[in-house]
């Protein structure tokens, strides 16, 4: 397995190079003037002399490829540059927000699984019954509701009308304890989880139906095992195998795609930083965010693949299938 992990890490290098090149060139052609940003925005006056100074200082006067190569060189030393906007090292700025993003992603993933697993299983076990229809209807509604809408509705009811939860902010699990932590994360978490739970429910339903028709499930029953054991031991693990891959690719979306939720709930994550940086043309920051997000995506996918192999012993990691 270690050789497999090492191989995957090797494979990630060219991927990250391509990503960095793509984002670098994308940003290069995106309109917007970084000098203005370094010197402050609309309310400030800039002289030509100072502009020149800044361009040189930040290497903005160099040709595209030189800039890119410099970026790569620095990145290899773990230096992703300095933010135009805040003058802070990009790496630190992103890493300081990563935990919040991860927390939210992990929580909403867990939450969506908590919803979709029982619902999907129920729909499969009682398929063609009223339960099935309810699960399907819920799933459809879930996919067709925009996250920001759901987030705001939650907030209006849970926090403004009923006063159950604080509207914004975040709490530290270790410092403030689980109750506080849940209070803050539950709304952003569920607004993210809803859409995912919807698709997962459908996946789990069909996967479970598929597995329930398999010979080994019938065989497990023929041993005289209790129905609970048959479903949760024999069918469930197998049904989750295809779900794992889907979950993996969804986490990628969660990391970079929670922007809207993060803005609504003032969640101190990477997504908000990304949006702010984009609107400010904070190129080093955008590059850094993209690279680090892609890296985490690759890492998560690696983990997912390992989990996959762990759940499904037929997949051997060190052998290409």
């Amino acid at each position, binding site marked *: 397995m270690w050789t497999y992990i090492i191989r995957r890490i090797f494979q990630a290098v060219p991927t990250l190079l391509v990503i960095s090149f793509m984002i670098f060139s994308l940003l290069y052609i995106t309109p917007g003037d970084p000098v203005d940003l370094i010197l402050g925005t609309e309310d400030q006056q800039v002289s030509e002399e100072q502009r020149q100074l800044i361009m040189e200082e930040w290497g903005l006067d160099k040709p595209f490829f030189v800039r890119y190569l410099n970026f790569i060189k620095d990145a290899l030393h773990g230096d992703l540059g300095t933010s135009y906007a805040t003058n802070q090292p990009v790496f630190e700025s992103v890493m300081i927000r990563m935990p919040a993003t991860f927390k939210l992603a992990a929580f909403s993933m867990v939450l969506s699984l908590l919803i979709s697993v029982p619902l999907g299983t129920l729909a499969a076990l009682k398929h063609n019954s009223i339960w099935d229809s309810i699960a399907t209807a819920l799933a459809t509604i879930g996919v067709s509701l925009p996250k920001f809408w759901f987030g705001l509705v939650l907030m209006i009811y849970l926090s403004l009308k009923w006063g159950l939860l604080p509207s914004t902010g975040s709490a530290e699990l270790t410092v403030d304890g689980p109750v506080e932590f849940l209070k803050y994360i539950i709304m952003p978490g569920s607004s993210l989880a809803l859409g995912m739970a919807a698709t997962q429910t459908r996946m789990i339903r069909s996967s479970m139906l598929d597995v329930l028709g*398999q*010979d*080994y499930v*019938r*065989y*497990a*029953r*023929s*041993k*005289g*095992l*209790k*129905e609970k*054991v048959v479903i949760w*031991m*024999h069918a469930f*693990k*197998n049904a989750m*195998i295809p779900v794992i891959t889907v979950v993996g690719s969804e986490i990628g979306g969660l990391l970079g795609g929670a922007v809207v939720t993060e803005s609504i709930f003032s969640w101190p994550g990477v997504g908000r930083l990304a949006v702010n940086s984009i609107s400010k043309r904070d190129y080093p920051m955008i590059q850094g965010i993209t690279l680090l997000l892609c890296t985490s995506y690759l890492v998560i996918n690696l983990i997912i693949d390992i989990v996959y192999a762990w*759940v*499904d*012993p*037929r997949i051997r990691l060190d052998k290409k299938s």
Partner: protein
Amino acid sequence: MTNEKCLEVKNLRTWFHTPEGIVKSVDGISFSIERGKTLALVGESGCGKTITSLSLIKLLPETAELHADSIILNGRDVTNLDKNEARKIRGAEISMIFQEPMTSLNPVYRIERQLGEVFRLHNPGISSAEVKQRSIEILKKVGVPNPEERLKVYPHQLSGGLRQRVMIAISLASNPRMVIADEPTTALDVTIQAQILDLLKQLQKDMNMSILLITHDFGVVSQIADRVAVMYAGRIVEEGKMEDVFTDPWHPYTKLLILSIPGIKVTRGNRLESIQGSVPNPLKFPEGCRFAPRCPYAKDICHKQQPPEIVSGDRRVSCFLRGDQHEG
């Protein structure tokens, strides 16, 4: 009939309610198996063999509906058991070996777990060490070399023959008095098949089990069965001692079936005897004898009336022609 009956089935009917109509997969069959003996149920694909066995072990799909005058298993009427009671007889009284060892073992668990759970289920409170001990014992018994190591592997790491042995081990772990083997060797090589059949015979002797063997392979039947029941389109058309049925089939279907096996009666290079047409659609079985449309000897009456069951000694057949000794 001195021997005690292990299983006695009377007029078993298993029907499916489908949107297109009622599928009468099993439509009034009766048979019995004596303790320690083997009954082979043969017939073409789709004639209802698997449904029969699932009816006995109470694992029918939800759309199925089961009726029977009686099903007596080990002296107990098990016709109308509720789900929980049905579960309790599975494994303990009756267990099953499936056709496909490839797909019948759960791919994500080690053999140890799949075998162990049977011991735990039937011996509550048993210690882990004992489970392991017994697992090794039973694997040895079914001829799995290096049982300790094999416990640690996943099904896909075993060859087909070993997998089938493991499945037999699992099915026998609960010490059932009756085993249904649904095409246990179809997926295997001839040489391995021979080993498995030998093993079954051996185990049957050791444990005094009854076996309901389901197959379409007469070769298999000839090696292991005491009695044979030939099924066609949800009915048993002929039943009798294995040697009798083979040497002198009474029903035209049985006869043609045996003749269509290459190398049995027809010599090399010549055309084989074959049954024309294919199995009738279970949604609309022909009136009268179900084999009549394909039967080269069919007479008018065959198309109109259901044939009576003619019993003679310990043999029975359902055919009009039996009365007037057809010979072709």
